């Protein structure tokens, strides 16, 4: 044991003199520096967004080497129209994917989270750890047989397959979100009281727990909606441009040999719009999902 390294110096016998106050100038300099840096980083982070918006309102021929960073000489929605023609059908399909995924996974997560937060059976921690591991695996490790299995199960290719897959692999994160929520927010007494009153587990879950679960649902729904919307890996393995979600269509639009950057960027904005709207209006709950993703409650 060493006592020298991390110990604070013992308080002196005589009361320490009050901390030297820094002069007003030092405070001003510090504050200016702080805000200066914050603003600088703000601009850097927003820079790609500026490029996206500005370029999307140029026409395909207006984006020569000169004036790439400047505002459009002629504002036009021509590239937006072009992008929408390419992405429109898949935009609709992605809603058909992300909404069911968000609802089904949250319901499964709520049921699992409730049981696992209240039921301390032997080996519960091991089971929970095994569940959680499922959200960290590289999905390539299941992809080769996954294709065969879903087609053997007779699930229609494209969106139905993707709904199924996102629901299955969304179970770990949703279970985690609800387990943490029930463990920290819903008082044990509430459940006990219901049991004393003779309500069974299912009854307790339905009439006592579900009504107070709204915040958990908001977090899980937003999380699953965003991940299904933004997913590219499952999409590229299990669907194609004709039956797949918008990320596939955008990649086809933008990935051509000599891409039309104006249309690609309008397409990138169209692709990002739903998740950005969710983020701007429901940001607090979006961050709740992010935090759950690091496992610590």
């Amino acid at each position, binding site marked *: 044991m060493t006592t020298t390294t*991390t110990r*604070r*110096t013992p308080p002196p016998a005589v009361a*320490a003199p009050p*901390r030297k106050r820094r002069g007003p100038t030092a405070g001003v300099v510090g504050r200016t520096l*702080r805000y200066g840096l*914050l603003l600088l980083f703000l601009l850097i*982070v927003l820079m*790609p967004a500026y490029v996206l918006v500005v370029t999307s309102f140029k026409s395909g021929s207006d984006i020569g*080497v000169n004036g790439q960073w400047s505002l459009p000489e002629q504002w036009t929605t021509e590239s937006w129209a072009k992008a929408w023609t390419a992405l429109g059908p898949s935009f609709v399909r992605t809603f058909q994917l992300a909404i069911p995924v968000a609802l089904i996974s949250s319901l*499964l997560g709520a*049921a*699992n989270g409730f*049981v696992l937060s*209240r039921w301390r059976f032997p080996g519960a*921690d091991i*089971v*929970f*750890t*095994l*569940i*959680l591991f499922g959200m960290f*695996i*590289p999905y*390539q*490790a*299941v992809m*080769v*047989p996954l294709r065969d*299995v879903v087609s053997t199960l007779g699930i229609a290719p494209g969106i139905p397959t993707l709904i199924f897959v996102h629901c*299955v692999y969304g*179970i*770990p994160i949703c*279970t985690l979100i609800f387990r943490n929520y029930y463990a920290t927010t819903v008082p044990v007494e509430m459940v006990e009281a219901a049991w004393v009153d003779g309500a*069974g*587990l*299912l009854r307790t*879950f339905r009439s006592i727990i579900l009504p107070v679960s709204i915040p958990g649902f908001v977090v899980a729904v937003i999380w699953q909606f965003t991940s299904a919307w*933004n997913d*590219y*890996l499952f999409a*590229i*393995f299990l669907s194609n441009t004709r039956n797949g979600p918008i*990320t596939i269509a955008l*990649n086809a639009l*933008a*990935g051509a040999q000599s891409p039309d950057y104006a249309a690609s*960027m309008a*397409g990138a*904005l169209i*692709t*990002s719009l739903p*998740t950005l709207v*969710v*983020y701007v209006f429901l940001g607090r709950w979006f*961050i709740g999902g992010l*935090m759950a993703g*690091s*496992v*610590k409650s």
Partner: protein
Amino acid sequence: MLTRVRRWGPGLLLISPSLLLLGVFVYGLIGWTIKVSMSDRHSAAESDGFVGLSNYVDLFTNDINGRFLHSLRNLLIFTVVFLLGTMLLGLLWAFLLERGVRAEGLFRTVYLFPMAVSFVASGVVWRWLMNSGQGDDAGGLNAIFGQLNLDFLQNSWWTDPEWGMVAMAVPAIWQLSGYVMALFLAGFRGIPAELREAAAVDGASTFQLYRRVLFPQLTPVALSALIIVGHMSMKMFDLIMSVSGAQWLTEVPAVYVWQTLLTSDYAKASAISVILLLLVALVIVPYLVQTMRTERRS
């Protein structure tokens, strides 16, 4: 006993579909992938001759142009830069924000917004920004550097054969730094106020306060951030596919799997996947076990 069954039987019923699905689709399919990785199924035709570990050995010793080792090298460079970048920026942003500044919400919202966007969408703009043309052909960031007379900053970005992966990490840092900031900010806010007050009473300077009191308190948060971002880095696929497309220069194992599947070499694709899974498990499993232990103790 009967009451226990009656009380928890429905619970088991409630979670068993999920457990069954995960058992089959996570662990069952991983097992299946391991089996294929030890077979000689190198084409679309079924053939399940058992070849032991030879597909793995081939990846390390007998791959054309050392392709697999090349993808591991790319992944290593990418991961180091990505981790350094997100940790430094995330900590700096949290440090700038933690004592409360005006419009904190605005800064936080903007710093974190790239997390809401898919790599496929941001890849479109980063591909344009990281245009490798220089001088008169300069585009994207190189063009801005030219206009600002910072020509020495112009570079070939991800097309550089040696260090291209450093550039590839730039968009990833842009996307994930806000997440690390959010983790650190939660960490800062979780430190009890008494610790700061005690340090102030002891006459600690601001520098000492951070160095000796606050940063040590953030070690667990830093570890979580490293592990979460680190494992994301190992799985990196979307970003590379949309910025450069699948190609030799920027190939990492996750992309190599995809390329190999296109040629129907299932055995080889499975072997790469299993190695990728092992790499991820190496950092994630100890983290999960440790987290569960501390949770049980508290």
